[in-house]
Structure formats: structure tokens, C-alpha cells
């Protein structure tokens, strides 16, 4: 049986790190991730009193992704900016050996940059799956789409990532 956190402080302690990692990988920016976590915790604080027992994590991730999408809409901008020291590295892949290339794309910065190139729907699905660790069913509930759509978004997102990373 799922235990339900009683206070927003407990939500912050138990889920804060996951929310922060989700936010960081979606935005690529520590300041934006920080603001997003604060907004999520604020919404949790407001919403806990009216929370109906059910899937707490589903409820929490719905709040989290809605906060992210609201922020994207509000700012009317791409949610990220390129990392300043990364710009030239993306044109070098064709001349590298396989080992060197593997070492290069093993760097978190490159993977992060590739994630930010994904359309938001694909990025969200990939991050919820591979960073947060949700099942397809959990993602479907959080994002409010059929499981088949989740499956498609994750695969298409990975296909784009593959093109960007090689």
C-alpha cells in the first residue's frame, strides 16, 4: 500500500531530489530547475489538503510536468540555452575514432545538450522513463496520454538522440 506524505516538507525530502533531476534534465539550467522545484512544492502545499487518496506519485508528477509546461508557456521561449563551451563540439563527430567518440558522448554535458534538442513531449517522456524511472503506465497517467503514445514518444525521442549523439 502506498504511504502518502502528510506535509509538503516530507514531499520535499522524499521526492525533492527526483523532482530536481527531472526539472534539471528538462530545462538544462540549475536556476530554472531550482525555480521549478519551488513552484512544484508550492503547488503541492496548496493541493495536499484536497488530495484524494489514489496514486500519489501520479498526482505529484502531473503537478510537476504541468508546472514545467506552464513555465514554458509563460516564458514563451525555448526552455534552454546552449551551454557556451559546447557549441563547436557538435561538428566534430565524423572525424573521431569510435573509442574517442564513445568517450565524448559519455560526457553528461553532451547527453544533456542532446536532450534539450528534443521536442518537449519526447524529452518529457524520455526523462520520466530514463531519469525518473517511471513505468510506461505511470508516465501515461502523469502526462494523460495512452500508453501507446508514451511508447511512441520514448522511441522517437531515442531515435533523435541517437542521431544527435553519433
Amino acid at each position, binding site marked *: 500500500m502506498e504511504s502518502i506524505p502528510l506535509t509538503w516538507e516530507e514531499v520535499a525530502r522524499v521526492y525533492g531530489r527526483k523532482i530536481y533531476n527531472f526539472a534539471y534534465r528538462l530545462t538544462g539550467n540549475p536556476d530554472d530547475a531550482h525555480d521549478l522545484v519551488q513552484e512544484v512544492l508550492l503547488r503541492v502545499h496548496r493541493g495536499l489538503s484536497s488530495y484524494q487518496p489514489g496514486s500519489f506519485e501520479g498526482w505529484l508528477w502531473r503537478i510537476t510536468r504541468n508546472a514545467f509546461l506552464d513555465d514554458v508557456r509563460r516564458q514563451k521561449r525555448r526552455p534552454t540555452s546552449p551551454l557556451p563551451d559546447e557549441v563547436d563540439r557538435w561538428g566534430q563527430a565524423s572525424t573521431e575514432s569510435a573509442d574517442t567518440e564513445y568517450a565524448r558522448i559519455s560526457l553528461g554535458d553532451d*547527453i544533456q545538450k542532446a536532450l534539450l534538442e528534443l521536442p518537449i513531449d519526447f524529452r518529457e517522456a524520455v526523462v520520466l522513463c530514463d531519469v525518473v524511472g517511471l513505468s510506461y503506465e505511470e508516465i501515461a497517467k502523469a502526462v494523460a496520454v495512452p500508453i501507446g503514445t508514451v511508447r511512441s514518444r520514448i*522511441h522517437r525521442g531515442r531515435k533523435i538522440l541517437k542521431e544527435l549523439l553519433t
Partner: protein
Amino acid sequence: MIHPTEQISAYLDGELHGQELTRLMDHLSRCGRCSADLEQMQFVRSAVRSLPVLELPEALIPEAEPVVVPLRRHKGMWAGVAAAAVVAAVALAAIVTPPPDEISLQQLNSMVGARSTLDPVFGPAKVSAFPVVEE
């Protein structure tokens, strides 16, 4: 030939079952293109999962319930509790041990007991009962 591309990621994520799984396995055994696709998807999936887990910034971690507040930062009722604890600690030390020339903050902490396990998720808190407070 129809290539079940979207099922490849689902298979890697353990989200493919029953007949879908059987059909994909059969297809992979006969299709070099999808086998290569499987390897590529496996690589991308591993790459994203290899991203380091970032710690929540301390500013976002709610403070645990205060046991005792710093001596010179009076915050409501806890200030009285802190002062009383100091008096009790010093008095106890005077009875049990010969009076030292000088009692350090570390000694006070060891006498009264520092907060140590308030946060079950993020580990022991880093503040002691009587932290050094800068004037």
C-alpha cells in the same frame, strides 16, 4: 516487411509482453536492420541513464524541526530552551568534573548532545546543538 521499431524501446524497458514480445523476438532473429536498431537504442538508453544523479540544492531542503537554536540567535520560545540547556549543561559539568579553565563549544555539544539523525532521507544533519555563532 513491417519493422516493429517502436516495440524495440518497449522491449528494452521491459514493457513488452505476451505475443508482442514473441513476435519481436522472432523478427529480430531474422532482421539485421532491427537488430542494429536494438543495439543503437540500447546505447542511447544507457547513455541517458548514465547521467549523474544531482543532489537537491540545500536551499530547497526544508529545515528539520529545531532541537535547540544557536545561543545568540534568539527565535521565540526556543531561545529560552537553549539558554536553559546551557545552564543545565554547565551546572552538570561543574558537579561531575573539576572546573576546566575554559569550556569549548565542542565540549558543550558533547555534554548536551548534538542533533544527529533528524533527517532519515538525507542523512545526519550537519548542525550541532550549539554551533559557533559569529558576532
